[in-house]
């Protein structure tokens, strides 16, 4: 296990370097000057040049990249052009917010997704099955922005059950978590259904039923564990995506998470924020995938981490 994890981490290093290099090239190739974004109304060339020099943007590009890389290895992701504070501080403030949103959304996704998937598999071709799959298709197809605004109008404005936006307590996370969670829930439901259907047709399940076991232990003890292997892969990928910023949800609900930080960095060409959030995102994805791989061994003893 240790060797497996170490090997995966070592392989991740060139991946991360590649990510930072591509990001650096892209932010410098894409048009848009961070100095001009700060000076909304007035921008004479002398002022722009002065500020660019102060921000170090007039240094040669290889020097800028190497400086960033060396500092990043020490945990220093530079200082935000816009906020004038270390990027690591900004990420430390925003990431816990995104973690809370992501884990809440994943909880919603798992409860709904697994529940609906199992039910659909057990009641295959029933009204419940058809309704669930159509519903899942609709949720996957619906733009998240539209779902978010609709939920604000229905549950916030009309019914006044929940706050419309903000981040001031647990009740403010309910709508965003629901909105963010229903899409992966739909994917998880469909995958759980097909995976369960495959498993419950296996001989050992037929044997368990023939032996007189009640349906609940047959499904939840014997079938579900094996059906979860492909689902865990999806969960890992979805969690990585949720953790690295649910930009639209955070924007609509006014949640100060990592996604908003990243999009603001791009909008204002805040290079250190862009590079820092992208690197952080890459690290999170790598770790999430390692955790997913490790979990396989627990789910299926036949899988050895080698």
């Amino acid at each position, binding site marked *: 296990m240790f060797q497996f994890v170490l090997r995966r981490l070592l392989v991740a290093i060139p991946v991360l370097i590649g990510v930072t290099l591509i990001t650096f090239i892209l932010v410098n190739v*894409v*048009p*848009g*000057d*961070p100095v*001009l*974004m*700060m*000076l*909304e*109304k*007035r*921008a*004479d*060339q*002398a*002022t*722009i040049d*002065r*500020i660019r020099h*102060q921000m170090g943007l007039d240094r040669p590009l290889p020097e800028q990249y190497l400086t960033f890389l060396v500092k990043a290895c020490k945990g220093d992701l530079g200082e935000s052009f*816009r*906020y*004038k504070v270390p990027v690591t501080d900004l990420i430390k*403030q*925003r990431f816990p917010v995104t973690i809370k949103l992501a884990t809440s959304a994943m909880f919603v996704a798992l409860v709904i997704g697994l529940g609906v998937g199992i039910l659909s598999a057990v009641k295959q071709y029933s009204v419940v099955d058809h309704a669930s799959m159509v519903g899942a298709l609709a949720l996957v197809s619906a733009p998240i922005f539209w779902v978010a*605004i609709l939920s*604000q*109008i229905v549950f*916030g*404005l009309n019914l*006044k059950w929940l*706050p*419309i*936006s*903000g*981040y001031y307590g647990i009740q403010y996370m309910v709508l965003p978590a629901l909105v963010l969670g229903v899409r992966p829930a739909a994917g998880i439901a469909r995958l759980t259904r097909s995976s369960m259907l495959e498993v419950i047709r296996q001989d050992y399940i037929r044997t368990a039923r023939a032996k007189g076991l009640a349906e609940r232990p047959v499904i939840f003890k014997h079938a579900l564990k094996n059906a979860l292997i492909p689902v865990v892969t999806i969960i890992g990928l979805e969690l990585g995506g949720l953790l690295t910023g649910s930009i639209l949800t955070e*924007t*609509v*609900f*006014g949640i*100060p998470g990592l996604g*908003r*930080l990243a999009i*603001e960095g791009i*909008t*204002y*060409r805040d290079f250190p924020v862009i590079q820092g959030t992208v690197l952080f995102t890459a690290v999170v994805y790598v770790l999430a995938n390692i955790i997913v791989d490790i979990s396989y061994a627990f789910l299926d003893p036949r899988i050895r981490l080698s």
Partner: protein
Amino acid sequence: MLRKSRLSKLLIVGLSVALILSIPMVGGCKTGGVVKGGVLNDWFSEDPAGIDPQVDTTLMVYRLARDIFSTLLRYQGATFNLEPDLLAEMPTVSEDGLVYSFKLKSGVKFHDGATLTSEDVRFTIERMLKPETGAGSGWVFEPIKGAVAMEEGTATSLEGFEKVSETEFTLTLEKPYAPFLHNLAIPPASIYSATACTAAGDQWRMAPVGTGPFKLGEYLPDTHIRLAKNTDYFEPGLPYLNEVFIRIVPDDDTGRLEFENGTMDASFLPTDVPEDMQRYQDDAAAGTYQILESTPANTYYFAFNLNVPAIEKLEVRQAIAYAIDKQKIIDTIFGGTAVEAVNFISTGIPGAWAAAPGYTFDLAKARSLMQEAGVTSMELEIAQRGGDTPSDTNVALQEMLSQIGITVRISIFDRATFREMRNQGNLPCNYGNWWADIPDPDNYLYTYFHSSQSTVMSTGVNDPDLDQMLDEGRLITDPAERWAKYGEAEKKIVYDNCWIVPLWHMRDYVVLQPNVKGWTMTPTGVYSYRTVYKTK
């Protein structure tokens, strides 16, 4: 039966209690119709990322600066008339227009308790001009003698500032500059505390200290800003509110939903969604909300880049001007919330050419001009700033110009790219807008058409005669003579050469909950909470 004396006592007590209970306890006390106290909930769609109006030139920073800081002068209510803010009286100006003498109010306190002196004014101006500040608004103080030397780093103190006493000082200009006092009335000219700003260093933008009616209570980036009442504000009785709570709500629809839900007390209204505007106006008529409107100093225009070969002929530019049915766009896209423009300089600002005829929609004339130019068909690129799809206005322009043989291609660029292209002089023709910094024609014409600026605004104008007119305009101190000069310049720009097509002046709308009073719509679009209060 009660004895008379005991009954009297009971009556007195009862009447007293009734009198006390009859005083309306509405979250504050009432003084002459104004209710003091309470919290106003407002929202911004962008986080200001710090509050330093010398460095940042965004509207959000200006609005916060208006209430956290004070300026030497300010605009009177909803007008462009100047009145003293930190000054005890209006400054005097020498006959040659070079020396301005100022006297500060005595005993004005910063939020940290320090007293305002002339040294704070010197510090503020010099900080703006020092290269290490990275200020984006140095132009505000540039007319002062020695300012340019400071900006270039060849001087470390301002030659044109002379301290007379703790509350008196003079500013000497390099050359006469008639609108100089207006420069001192806008948020970038906010006066900072020398000691607090020096002590704060890089953190000044997150913990500003001013003399304004509100102090910064709490700033949680991307979440909210809390402004707390400055109980030592130099205007007795103000502000009325105890607190202003400004949430950062990045999605405009969400912000308006919050307003309709009653969790916000104020919201701006977009002018490009007529159905929404009508809905709010209907609600306002029913008494659910109140809508305030004004026509601030702005102009929306169709700008040419003279470096684009397609529009180098005057007749083509004029044809485009006549082919745009401005009133139709105002009525259909903006629901009548704009006023057709005949000048580039906004209505109400002196210096606009009084006899401007306007480019009235005339398709026949437009086609005739294209024939004169010898152009039967051509392609034209219009740049659009932001958005996922072409805006309604750009689509309308595209359709209108197709009527005179012009095929328009709308290119959408994100904000940063658009700004960079404009700054490099590479922006093709575009539908844009200008909101004046100060109510002076120089702020319009020099910014866009002086050859020193025309590249960064992508107009491509390089006309020595015009440069001379605009340079001379800055030096003239006699108002009538000055306005005549600018009127002449505007005629040359808009009508003789059609270097820009003024389209309309957009109205500004704010919707308020019915219990919000004292809100003043300003001609600059920079509101203050200083006089706002809430009833009930």
